[in-house]
C-alpha cells in the first residue's frame, strides 16, 4: 500500500509540473499586453518599459517560468496586477469560500446520488427506476446556468424560500444562518449534474454486482435483503462510484466558475473569471495552479480509497 501511495505521489508531482508548464504557456499566449492592461491605453512608452522592468517581464520566458514556479512553491504567489493585493491572501480567502460551497454541495449530492442509484438498481425496470434514470439523464444534459436560473426562478422569485443573490462579504463567517441560506441555491445548482452522474454510475454497478454469484450466495446464506445490500453489495458496487466522485470534483470546479458568477458568490471561480477579464497574470496563474492541485489531490484520494475498498488492488 505504501509503495502504491508513493508511486501515485510521484505521478502527482509530474502532473503538477506539466500543468504548471501549460498554465504558464497559456498565460503567455493570452492576447493583450500586460503593461498596457495595467497602466491603461494612454500610458507612455517610458512608463510601460519601467513597468515591464519592474515586473521582470523583459526576461526570457524560461527564466520567468523558473522564477515563477520557484516562488510559487515557496509560497510567494506575487502581487495582483489589478488590485495590488497579495495574491496568496486573495486566493486562499476565496478558496475557503468555495470549499465551503463545495462541501455543502458534496454532502448533498454524494449520499443522495448513491441512494438514488441503489434504489433504482434494486427496483430496476420499475417506475421508480424509470423516473430516476430519465430524471438524471435530463439533468446531465442541462448546463449549470440553465439549472441555476431555473432554481432562482422557482425557489427565490416564486417561492421566496432563499435569496437569489449569494453575494456575501468575502470574509463572512460560515456557521451563520445568513451565510448558509445563501449557499443552498448555488450548492444545489452544482450538485445536480454530479448527482445525476453518481446516480447513474451507482445504478449500473449495483445492477452488475446484484447479478454476481456471491450475492446469490449471500441470499442463500439466509441473510436479510438489507444485510445483503449493505454488507455484500454496496462495498463492491461503490468502487466505480468512488472514481466518479473524484472526477466529479473536477466538474465541481468547472461548475463553480459559472455558478459563482451567476449567484455573485465570492469564490475561487469568480476570482479566476475576474483575473482573466483583467489579464491579471499572477492571479490567473495562482488560481489555476490551486485548482489543479485540488483536482490531482482528489484523484489521489480516489485511488487510495479505491485501493482500500478493493483488496485485489491493495495487495498487488
Amino acid at each position, binding site marked *: 500500500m505504501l*509503495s502504491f501511495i*508513493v*508511486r501515485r505521489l*510521484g505521478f502527482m508531482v509530474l502532473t503538477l509540473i506539466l500543468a504548471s508548464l501549460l498554465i504558464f504557456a497559456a498565460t503567455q499566449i493570452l492576447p493583450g499586453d500586460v503593461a498596457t492592461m495595467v497602466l491603461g491605453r494612454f500610458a507612455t512608452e517610458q512608463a510601460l518599459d519601467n513597468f515591464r522592468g519592474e515586473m521582470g517581464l523583459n526576461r526570457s520566458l524560461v527564466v520567468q517560468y523558473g522564477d515563477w514556479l520557484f516562488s510559487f512553491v515557496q509560497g510567494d504567489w506575487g502581487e495582483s496586477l489589478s488590485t495590488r493585493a497579495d495574491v496568496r491572501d486573495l486566493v486562499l480567502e476565496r478558496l475557503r469560500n468555495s470549499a465551503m460551497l463545495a462541501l455543502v454541495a458534496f454532502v448533498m449530492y454524494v449520499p443522495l446520488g448513491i441512494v438514488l442509484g441503489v434504489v433504482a438498481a434494486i427496483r430496476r425496470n420499475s417506475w421508480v427506476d424509470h423516473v430516476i434514470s430519465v430524471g438524471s439523464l435530463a439533468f446531465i444534459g442541462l448546463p449549470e446556468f440553465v439549472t441555476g436560473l431555473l432554481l432562482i426562478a422557482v425557489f427565490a422569485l416564486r417561492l421566496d424560500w432563499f435569496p437569489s443573490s449569494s453575494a456575501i462579504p468575502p470574509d463572512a463567517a460560515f456557521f451563520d444562518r445568513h451565510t448558509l441560506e445563501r449557499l443552498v441555491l448555488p450548492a444545489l445548482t452544482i450538485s445536480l449534474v454530479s448527482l445525476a452522474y453518481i446516480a447513474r454510475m451507482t445504478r449500473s454497478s449495483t445492477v452488475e454486482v446484484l447479478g*454476481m*454469484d*456471491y450475492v*446469490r*450466495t*449471500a*441470499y*442463500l*446464506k*439466509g*441473510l*436479510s435483503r438489507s444485510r445483503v445490500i449493505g*454488507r*455484500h453489495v454496496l*462495498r*463492491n458496487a461503490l468502487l466505480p462510484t468512488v472514481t466518479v466522485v473524484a472526477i466529479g470534483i473536477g466538474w465541481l470546479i468547472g461548475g463553480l466558475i459559472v455558478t459563482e458568477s451567476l449567484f455573485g458568490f465570492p469564490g475561487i471561480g469568480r476570482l479566476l473569471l475576474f483575473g482573466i477579464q483583467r489579464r491579471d497574470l499572477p492571479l490567473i496563474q495562482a488560481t489555476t495552479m490551486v485548482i489543479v492541485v485540488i483536482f490531482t489531490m482528489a484523484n489521489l484520494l480516489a485511488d487510495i480509497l479505491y485501493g482500500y*475498498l*478493493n*483488496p*485485489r488492488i491493495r*495487495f498487488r
Partner: protein
Amino acid sequence: MATTTETTTGRGSRNVLEIEGLSVAYRTEEGDIFPVRDVSLTIGKGESFGLVGESGSGKSTLAMGAIRYLPANGRVTAGRVLLSGRDLLSLSGKEMRSVWGSRVAVVYQSPGNALNPSIRTGNQIAEVARIHLGMSKQEAHQRMLEMLEKVKMPDPESVARRYPHQLSGGMLQRCVVAQAMVTNPELLILDEPTTALDVTTQAVVLDLVAELKQEFDSAILYITHDLGVVARVCDRVGVMYAGEFMEQGAIRHLFKRPLHPYTLNLLGCVPHFSLGPRRKTLNTIPGFIPRLDELPEGCIFAPRCSLAEPECRVAQPPLVRAGEDHLTACRRWPVVPTPAEHMDTITADLMQARGEAENRLLEARDVKKYYPVPAQGPFRKDKRKVKSVDGMTIWIDEGRTLGLVGESGSGKTTMARTIIGLVEPTEGTISLRGEVLGPTTRSRTRDVLRRIQMVFQNPDASLNPRQTVGQSIGRPLALFGTPRGEIPGRVLELLEAVHLSPSYYRRLPSELSGGEKQRVAIARAFAAEPDLILCDEPIASLDVSVQGSLMNLLTTLQAEKGTSYLFISHDLSAVQHLSDWVCVAYLGCAMEWGDAGDVLNPPYHPYTEALLSAIPIPDPDVIQKNIRLEGSVPSAVDIPPGCRFHTRCPRFIGDICVEEEPPWREGEGDHWIYCHHTFETLVEMQKETLRLADHDHGSPGVEVQV
C-alpha cells in the same frame, strides 16, 4: 402431462427431501415456458442423489425451484416440496430465509465468484454462524476455524484472514463447502462444484464431499453434467432431459444396465478408456434438445431416439418401475439394448492399422517462453521471470495427433501459441518439415502461416459476431489464394465436411449453438488446407454428447485429409481417445511423453499416475487407486529446484529429487520419462495402478486395483 409421482426411494430410513410433481415456469415475452415439468424425487438422510443432464435440461432450475430461489420471472406452478416433512412452498419469505443457509446450503460451480471479493473469507464463513446459530463474534470465529479444519484446510487461521483472490481454486471451494456446512444442514445442494477446477483439484474436492457425507449425514443433491463424477460420489442418480426425468435409480443399475435410450446414449458419448486409443467412433445423439416452447408430442426424446416407434409420439410415457429402485420413462424399456450391445452397433473401427511413423512434420525443440514479472514499485524492478514454457521439446508426425495434457499453468497453451507464432519464444526453434520457422507470424511467409492453423477453446470469442458463417470460412480461402468465384463452392464443401447443411452459409454466430460454432471454427481451420491444426481445448466448453460428435469429426477429417493435430486438453480420456502420441506437461516442462499406448500404461511418470488416478470414470465398479496431489501448482516464477514436481510428488524419493534435475529415461518403444525413478522401480510401485489404455485390439475393460 402424465403424472409421475412415483419416485425411487433411497436406502435411507428417513426422507430429507421429497419433491412431488414439481413444475417451474418462466415468464417470457412469448408467454410462459416450463423448464421443469412434473418431476419427483426423494433423497434420504446421508444419501447423495446425482442430478445429471446436459445444459438446458433444467437440473439447476429444479434444485433452485425446490428451495424457492428463482429469478424474478420464475415461479413454481405445481407440486410439493417437503424438507424433513415441512412444506417449503407454503413458507413465508421470512421463514424461507431461516431455512436458507441453516437447513439448506448451496455450493456452486465457480468458487472464485461464490465468495465476496472484498470481505475476508473467515468473516464470510463466520457470518452464517452468527445469523443462524446466534453466536457471538468470538464463538462464530471459533466455529469458523473448526469448519475450516473439517474441510482439511491447511493453516485455517491464515486462510481465514485472507481475501478470496489470495486463495487457489481448490482452497476456495473448501471455504465455500465449509461455509455451507457451518450449520450442519439437512440438505446440501452442490451445483457443478468441480466443473471449473483442474482434474487433480476436482479429485480432492470429490474426496472431501465423500468424507463430509460420512461425517455430517446431510442429504446431498449433486448437480453435474459429468457422469464420471456421479459414479464417484453418488448413491442414486436421476437423468434429466429437457425438464423431465428420463430415468432414475441406484447408481449401479443406471450405469450397468440403463433402461432409457437417452442414458445409454449419454454413456456412449464419453470416451471410455476400454475403447483404446481412437479405434472406435464415439456415440452421438442426432438432433438437439428441443426448445421449451416447441416440445414434441408424446415422449420428448422420441425425435432423437433410435428405438422410437410411432406409438412413442402419441402419449407421454410415465416413469414406470423397471426394477427395484429403478424407474424409466421409456415405454420400450424391455428392449433397450445393454451397453455392450449398444457399443457394438454404434462403434465402427475408424482407423486402419497404420504402418510405422511417416515423415516428421513439426518439431519444436527446447522451447522456452519467459515473461517479465510486473514491477512491484516505482524503484523496484523485478528481474525474475514467469517461466510459462521452460524447455519443452515435442514433435508431431504427418497425419498423426499429439495430445498435450496437463493442469492449468502447465504451459500447454503458451506452447501452442509459440508454435503458431503468436508468441515469440525466448529460446528454442520451431521447424516444419525440417525448415526452421521465424519466431513470429510477421517473420513467416504466408505459405507457412497457411500450413499451421488453430482452433480455440471458446468459439464465441474466435468467430467474428458480425460475419456470417460463409464469410468466416471464406476469409482464409481468399487470403490464401482461392479464386473469388470458387470460394462459395469451397465453403459449401467445407460445411458439408463438418456436417452442417448449406443453410448455415448465411447465418451469424449468434444463431448457432456452441457445438455448431466449434464446427464452423474447425471448417475455417481446414479451409486453409493446413498440415497441422493446433486444437486448444476445442471441446472443453461443450456438452458431452456434442464433445463425442466433435471428436468423431476430428478423427474422420484427419483420416480423409491427413492433417496432423496438436490436441491440447486437461481431459485425459479425450486425449487418449484422439492421440497417437501423448506429452504430459507440468509447470512448463514435459514429464513424460511418447506413444499413447506406452504413456497411458504403467510405468507412468508419478505425475501422469496422479492425473490418471484423479479422473472420474463413469463406472461405479471402478475403484481407483487414491493418489492425490496436495496443494496447487507452484508459481511459474519460483520453479522448485531439482525435479520441479518434487513438491507434490507422491513417489518422492528424497534429497536427490530436490537437488538434481532428473534424467530423461528411455523405455521400450517410444517412451520417455523424466524422473529419478528407473522404469523398473516405477513398474514395481505401480503394479496395482489402473491400466487405462490397452496395447492389444479389443481387449476388454479396465484392470482395477481393488
